[in-house]
């Protein structure tokens, strides 16, 4: 089953044996020296800062939503190590095909918090990620995005481009037919796609154990003949090495890779959701002990490279993010043409007619006042 030309971690952490690839423990101790990547201190510090930025942005977004200044929001709390590690390996020319819970990776691709806020304020211009090269909009219809990633994989392979594709799905998403189809196509076509399952153990209110009887999610790769690995998603270094390995593998032309990033959704599903209805506070507390930011900080402290003034940094980020939110919030410009303008490359007569009829109504309404 396990091919010989697979990278070592895929062989050593065979999901069929239900192994999980982990490098540091909750206290920040290195538990697996063999695979520990050697990163220079700045890289690690920078990674921590990005995770921290995502955390703060998330918390602020939740609070803006609570203040009634924004519609439903989807928090990322607890899943930051995955997002930032991925972001560190997605190059300018690589493709990002997101689901809806990988904000840190989007930010790494050049998406701004202003855009994220605009999106959650109900403006399509937030969701288009105009300035993020090779980045698709957020995918809401679960599972469908994986096919897009596979198709892009075909494209870049066909065009002989040096580009990899990174795509994401949740644990629940693995139940959708599109998940299996897309991995199967990717296997047959041998395209350079890195699939990540963010297994945060919940599908809104439903625990992942009600989604499937497979021993873990990485093992599903066997059904499609592609390499798979289960990685500790709250361990920045494990995620870093997994993405490094996967990206190299994909870019070498060997085909797709499946990563299960095992994590925990520390927050609510969305700001409309109340997890106390379906899970115990103790469970949340327990998983809080595996917080990826905390683990990375402890590692840094042990290694003596912890030099971040968290309070100051938080203040700085808060100001920045707040500025972006205000910017987005003040953007009230939404002319009715926006509704019609992007449906087709050229507006068909029928849409023009509907638009002009609507304009007649608007002017009638204007005159009536």
């Amino acid at each position, binding site marked *: 089953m396990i091919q010989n030309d697979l990278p070592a971690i895929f062989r050593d952490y065979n999901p069929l044996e239900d192994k999980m690839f982990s490098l540091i423990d909750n206290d920040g101790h290195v538990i697996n020296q063999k695979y520990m990547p050697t990163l220079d201190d700045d890289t690690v510090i920078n990674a921590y800062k990005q995770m921290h930025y995502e955390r703060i942005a998330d918390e602020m977004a939740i609070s803006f939503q609570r203040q009634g200044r924004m519609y439903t929001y989807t928090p990322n709390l607890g899943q930051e190590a995955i997002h930032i590690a991925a972001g560190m390996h997605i190059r300018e020319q690589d493709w990002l095909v997101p689901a809806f819970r990988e904000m840190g990776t989007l930010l790494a691709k050049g998406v701004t918090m202003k855009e994220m806020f605009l999106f959650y*304020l109900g403006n399509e211009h937030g969701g288009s990620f105009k300035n993020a090269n090779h980045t698709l909009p957020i995918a809401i219809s679960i599972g469908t995005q994986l096919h897009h990633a596979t198709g892009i994989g075909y494209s870049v392979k066909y065009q002989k481009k040096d580009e990899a594709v990174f795509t994401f799905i949740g644990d629940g998403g693995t*139940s*959708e037919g599109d998940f299996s189809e897309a991995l199967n196509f990717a296997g047959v076509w041998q395209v350079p796609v890195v699939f990540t399952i963010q297994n945060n153990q919940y599908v809104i209110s439903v625990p992942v154990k009600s989604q499937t009887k497979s021993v873990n999610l990485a093992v599903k790769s066997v059904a499609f003949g592609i390499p798979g690995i289960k990685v500790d998603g709250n361990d920045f270094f494990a995620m870093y090495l997994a993405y490094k390995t996967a990206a190299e593998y994909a870019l070498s032309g060997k085909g797709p890779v499946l990563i299960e990033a095992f994590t925990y959704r520390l927050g609510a599903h969305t700001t409309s959701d109340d997890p106390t209805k379906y899970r115990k506070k103790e469970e949340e507390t327990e998983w809080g002990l595996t917080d990826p930011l905390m683990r990375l900080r402890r590692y840094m402290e042990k290694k003596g490279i912890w030099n971040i003034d968290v309070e100051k940094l938080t203040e700085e980020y808060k100001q920045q993010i707040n500025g972006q939110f205000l910017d987005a919030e003040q953007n009230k410009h939404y002319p009715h043409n926006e*509704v019609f303008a992007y449906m087709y490359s050229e507006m068909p007569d029928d849409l023009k007619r509907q638009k002009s009829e609507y304009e007649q109504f608007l002017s*009638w309404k204007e005159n009536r006042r």
Partner: protein
Amino acid sequence: MSVMTMVKAINNALDIKLKEDDAVVVYGEDVGVEGGVFRVTEGLQKKYGVERVFDSPLAESGIVGTALGMAVSGLRPIVELQFEGFTYPAFNQIASNVSRMQNRSRGKYTMPMVIRFPYGGGINALEHHSDSPEALYAHIPGLKVVIPSTPYDAKGLLISAIESNDPVVFMEPKRIYRAIKQEVPDEKYSLPLGKAKVIHDGSDVTVVAFGALIRECQKAIAMAEEAGISVELIDLRTIYPIDRETIRNSVRKTGRMVVVAEAHESFSVGSELIAITNEEAFLYLEAPPRRVMGFDTIVPLAQGEQYFIISPERIFYEIEKTFNF
């Protein structure tokens, strides 16, 4: 009698049928512990157990396809799809099997199943959470498509849907899930599928609507009456099979019709109603029947939804234009 929202009335209908009939099971994404994202199934799992009210894996084709299997083997499954935009992964099961199994098996198997889902705009939602796909399902032969506009109707129609041996697509106007409160009998009652209801008599213009837009039409009617226009309001209640008789009688009387619905206007329930008035009341028509409907565009996100959502004013505008034609 209890005062109920539509959410409560639907919950109550499910409760009554679960209690009365062991063959009834209810499942879908988050319908168990959570009681559904809109809390429509709240409390039912506790009452009837995890074998009768349960969470399914996240796969709509699976939810609907397994329900077909249950329906041919003695159960009466009621499945919830979380939002209208997430019914499409199940489209193949619905169009290729659910709607066809009775005909394919020459009646050997019946299809006593209900597919429930919330639909429609006006709640400032993300994409796929504001659509009105009734025409898609109404065009598929073999299905019945039902849309209630009040808590009372929701309960009575859902009970009929559950008791029907035909597959019913039961679309719930999420915008008024909790917006309307009404006295609803606690005991069981049912309302016939396939029958529209005249909910306001009038003589000048017939307005046909359903679901959440009935409320908006009522506001528009108040404006119209102030302007001296007498409006007859028909709540379609069942989209397929459509109640031609009620439409015919009204339009023959008024000679004018305005259809109000949120779906994209092309190839819609509006188109069908105009066709019907032509077939049933051509010689009585005094003005072209009108569609006041959604544009042929994606429903915009919250900031743009004001343009898409149909206001009482816009309905009134069209009533007046039709009246003055």
